[in-house]
């Protein structure tokens, strides 16, 4: 069953500008559509600055979308006001990338974790207390730490606090915005395993944003690849890793380190830089760097997402 559907979502930002100067328009998310099925983990992968985080935050309406639709369990939540959104806020939450900036430095851990429950008036005070301790133990913290402040914890521990806070309202849908990118590799594995265990236990649906394909491989069911504000390919994880269709996906996959040095593989090194989302290239946004470019059509016509296999969609003129 579809939990969340996004249709032609757009989020633009005005950059600069003044009295006489027109602002530049940064197209962070430009015409993105996808569905998330209940209980799955959808990975959203792409380079820095391609709009993954903006996409995740726009879905949660932390940013107001400029156009398009966000449909949650059949309800259109795109144009709901702040107060109308409140009842949906109980069902969705977010885990942040930065474990240092996302916790209020003046609140204790107990306060931070019980905050979402207080905001939504869930449970009595005593039950909340019990719930906080339960959550802390679930994410691998001890109950004695309840009165400590965020700065007394390490990055990995803080990320656990962030996860506990996200789980406090027992949400159906979580946006995990690069939850492990700021952590050491050894801690990354701990947090990823924790998230996997929690997902099995709580059964939430997750949009997992990351730039790390190894992380995607570990945790996700399906993967969407984003490039300069657009989805270029979306497929089940296995299909994507064994049979990538879009040249950009191929290039990304070829950059993932393989543990066995004897395996020979061709490495694709892309030329040029990621184009600016302020003035993205015409036609296919990848055409300037593409090594499989087929001709003029790439420069003039924007490719649509086309079905190329079971659940496998790609936006490329090759197909």
């Amino acid at each position, binding site marked *: 069953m579809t939990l969340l559907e996004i249709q032609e979502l757009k989020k633009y930002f005005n950059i600069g500008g003044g009295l006489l100067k027109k602002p530049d328009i940064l197209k962070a998310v430009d015409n993105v559509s996808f569905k998330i099925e209940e209980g799955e983990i959808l990975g959203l992968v792409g380079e820095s600055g391609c709009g993954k985080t903006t996409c995740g935050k726009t879905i949660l309406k*932390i940013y107001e979308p400029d156009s398009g639709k966000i449909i949650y369990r059949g309800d259109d939540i795109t144009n709901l006001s702040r107060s109308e*959104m409140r009842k949906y806020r109980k069902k969705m939450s977010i885990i*942040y990338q930065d474990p240092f900036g996302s916790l*209020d430095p*003046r609140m204790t851990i107990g306060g931070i974790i019980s905050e979402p429950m207080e*905001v939504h008036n869930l449970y009595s005070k005593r039950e909340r207390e019990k719930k906080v301790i339960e959550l802390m133990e679930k994410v691998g913290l001890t109950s004695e730490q309840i009165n400590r402040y965020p*700065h007394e914890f390490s990055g990995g521990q803080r990320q656990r606090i962030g996860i506990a806070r996200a789980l406090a309202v027992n949400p159906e849908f979580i946006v995990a915005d690069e939850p492990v990118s700021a952590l050491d590799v050894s801690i990354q594995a701990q947090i990823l395993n924790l998230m996997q265990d929690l997902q099995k236990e709580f059964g939430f649906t997750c949009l997992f944003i990351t730039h790390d394909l190894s992380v995607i491989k570990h945790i996700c069911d399906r993967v969407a690849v984003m490039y300069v504000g657009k989805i270029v390919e979306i497929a089940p994880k296995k299909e994507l890793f064994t049979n990538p269709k879009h040249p950009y996906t191929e290039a990304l996959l070829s950059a993932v380190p393989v543990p066995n040095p004897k395996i020979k593989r061709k490495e694709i090194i892309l030329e040029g830089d990621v184009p600016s989302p302020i003035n993205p290239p015409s036609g296919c946004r990848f055409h300037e760097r593409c090594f499989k470019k087929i001709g003029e059509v790439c420069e003039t016509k924007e490719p649509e997402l086309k079905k190329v296999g079971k659940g496998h969609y790609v936006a490329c003129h090759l197909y």
Partner: protein
Amino acid sequence: MEKTVKRRTRTQDVIRQLRKNKTAMFGMGMMLVIFILCAGAPLFAPHDPNDSDLYRGNRPGFWSSDHIPGFWLGTDYLGRDILSRILYGGRVTLSVGFVALGFALVMGVILGLVSGYFGGLADNLIMRFVDILFAFPALLLALVIAGTLAQRYPDVSRITWSMVAIGIVYTPQMARVMRGAVLVIKETEYIEAEHAIGSSTWRIIFKHVLPNSLAPIIVYSTLMLATAILDAAALGFLGVGAQAPSPEWGLSLSIARKYLISGVWWAATFPGIAILLSVLSLNLLGDGLRDALDPRLKGGAKL
């Protein structure tokens, strides 16, 4: 498992930094002594501050053979004990400074919060109003406000009006400092997280933005308190503050000024020293507090 090192909280860290700073601790000690002496004036003062006797007028203090025993700092032109008048006068001057600053602090925090958090039209209105107040020299504006209000409402004590006047004059600076801090805190990820949770605007403002943006304005207040006390004395000196026979420091200074030429230097000097010491002690404390709250200066950066 990693062993957690016992870390200090931010407040503990600030206090530790402050205690290491000898000048700041000296300032705080001096301020406390002045405060206790003035607050407990009836206990410490050797005489009634308004007990006058023209036969003992303009007599010098302990340094001269001509002094009257028990009148350590001499007497003024009406024969009142200067030491007692300074102790009682401090109650007036310091409370004008404190109350005025408290008024400015409360107004500044409210205006700064509203304009920083909501932005847009509210921000523009408040900040342009603040700019207008900024356009006038502070003391001149305070003088005009205190003078006008006292004329208009003669029943209310002039001391009250000088408190209000100084408070109004200091509000813009407080509002700007507060607004700056709020603008920074508003953009942090933990405030965004509150939006994602669905917290109400009031909850976000009072539970998260306010406590996190208070540090700069507290430091600023300590420094401004010194200036406010100085302005309180200045208003008294210029005649729009406390009225005779109040022992207020500025007023005492103003009256004693006329006798300087006849060699009665003590009547003006000692209230002046009292003002100087209060302002100095608060400045030392404020400087130390600012350094302690700025982690970049940790360990005492030397130039």
